[in-house]
């Protein structure tokens, strides 16, 4: 029987006897990052596009990785042919058309893009938006693929920001706008409907959190779901009314906004979100935690959530790093 092949970026490579997928790619001059080569450090993570993965190639990976066929290439000795790609390279470019664009508040635009051939995604994952001149930025999906026939993004206006100013000023209904993706680990995975969930973030970090919330509710999540949205002032709590409605309709859902600048007159607590979120939930042992938005706040919350008892595997974070920072 011939040895099975590994296909990468369109080319097939025949594996040698007892050769891992990682070693096979490295032997053929492909630059895959790796470190421990013993299935631990997760540097060599790849994604399977087609073919069956052996179980031990996925030991220790988080559920959102499993859901997307990620595997450890250093521990992968498949018995059959396998097509693989770099993490998150599987998303194809999908042509889209702006279905609707309007303002959720003074500085957040709601952008709905219709794709004739919609990419399979999960609420909370992010896409690259591709401007016709090639400028690319990531935005997270607030929509629910099962309910919405468009993909919804919440785009904050960044003063001087190339993409966000263009979205706010120039983009209009009917314009073509291509997407690439999806990518990212921030999404709901069914299977543990009673587990308490914390969703926390600032600004348009709410977009993926709102998507995850809707997804969890639609999939019958019955355990408590706490959503903590932080903003500079109450004008930034751009889904306040909608989230209060959802709280009334779903007894397991709690919405807890907080603002940095406020006097508490409107009933919205003045607090730092990293302290406030944890004061709403208490210890996080056994919780699932989703954190999105401003990178510094995401990192602080990540650490605090972990120290408050959440498992590393149960913390999902998307820091909205700007391409200028990285």
């Amino acid at each position: 029987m011939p040895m099975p092949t590994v296909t990468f970026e369109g080319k097939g490579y025949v594996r040698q006897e007892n050769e891992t997928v990682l070693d096979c790619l490295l032997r053929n001059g492909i630059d895959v990052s790796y470190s421990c080569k013993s299935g631990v450090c997760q540097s060599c993570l790849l994604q399977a596009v087609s073919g069956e993965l052996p179980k031990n190639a996925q030991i220790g990976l988080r559920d959102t990785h499993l859901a997307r066929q990620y595997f450890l290439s250093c521990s992968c000795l498949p018995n059959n042919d396998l097509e693989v790609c770099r993490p998150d390279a599987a998303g194809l470019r999908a042509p889209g058309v702006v279905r609707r664009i309007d303002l959720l508040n003074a500085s957040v635009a709601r952008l709905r893009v219709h794709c004739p051939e919609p990419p399979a995604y999960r609420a909370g994952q992010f896409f690259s938006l591709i401007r016709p001149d090639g400028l690319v930025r990531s935005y997270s999906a607030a929509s629910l693929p099962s309910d919405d026939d468009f993909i919804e993004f919440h785009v904050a206006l960044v003063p001087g920001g190339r993409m966000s100013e263009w979205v706010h000023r120039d983009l209009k209904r009917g314009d073509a706008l291509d997407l690439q993706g999806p990518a990212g680990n921030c999404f709901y995975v069914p299977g543990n409907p009673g587990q308490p969930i914390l969703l926390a973030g600032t600004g348009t970090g709410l977009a993926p959190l709102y998507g995850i919330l809707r997804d969890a509710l639609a999939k019958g999540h019955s355990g408590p779901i706490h959503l903590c949205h932080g903003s500079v002032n109450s004008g930034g709590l751009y889904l306040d009314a909608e989230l209060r409605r959802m709280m009334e309709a779903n007894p397991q859902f709690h919405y807890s906004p907080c603002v940095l600048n406020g006097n508490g007159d409107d009933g919205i607590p003045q607090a730092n979100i990293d302290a406030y979120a944890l004061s709403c939930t208490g210890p996080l042992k056994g919780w699932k935690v989703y954190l999105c938005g401003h990178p510094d706040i995401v990192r602080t919350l990540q650490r605090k959530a972990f120290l408050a008892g959440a498992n590393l595997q149960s913390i999902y974070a998307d820091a909205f790093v700007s391409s200028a920072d990285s």
Partner: protein
Amino acid sequence: MSTLFEQLGGTGAVDAAVDVFYRRVLSDERIASFFDSVDMERQAAKQKAFLTMAFGGPNSYTGLDMRKAHAHLVKRGLGDVHFDAVLEHLGGSLRELGVAENLISQVITTAESTRSDVLDR
């Protein structure tokens, strides 16, 4: 005769210990700052690599790799105090998980053997 790694429970033991260990490390202000700038998710995986090594498990790290991985930390002042603190948390985590003392001392000996590489001496 099974190896130390097998006696401890293999990769399952690493998975069980990583959260306990890393939580201790991040809560210890003597050493937490060394972990400040690193992405937590990647760092968690590296903690697993660390534990696998200390447990005598399979890994392909060489002394040179250990020097390289910690060189930038040595420049920032990584020294014996910090190394000792990490060993302390390693022992403490395993005790918290109910591991037998004779196995713990073997783990500490394994980790101790990397001292000159980690501290680049």
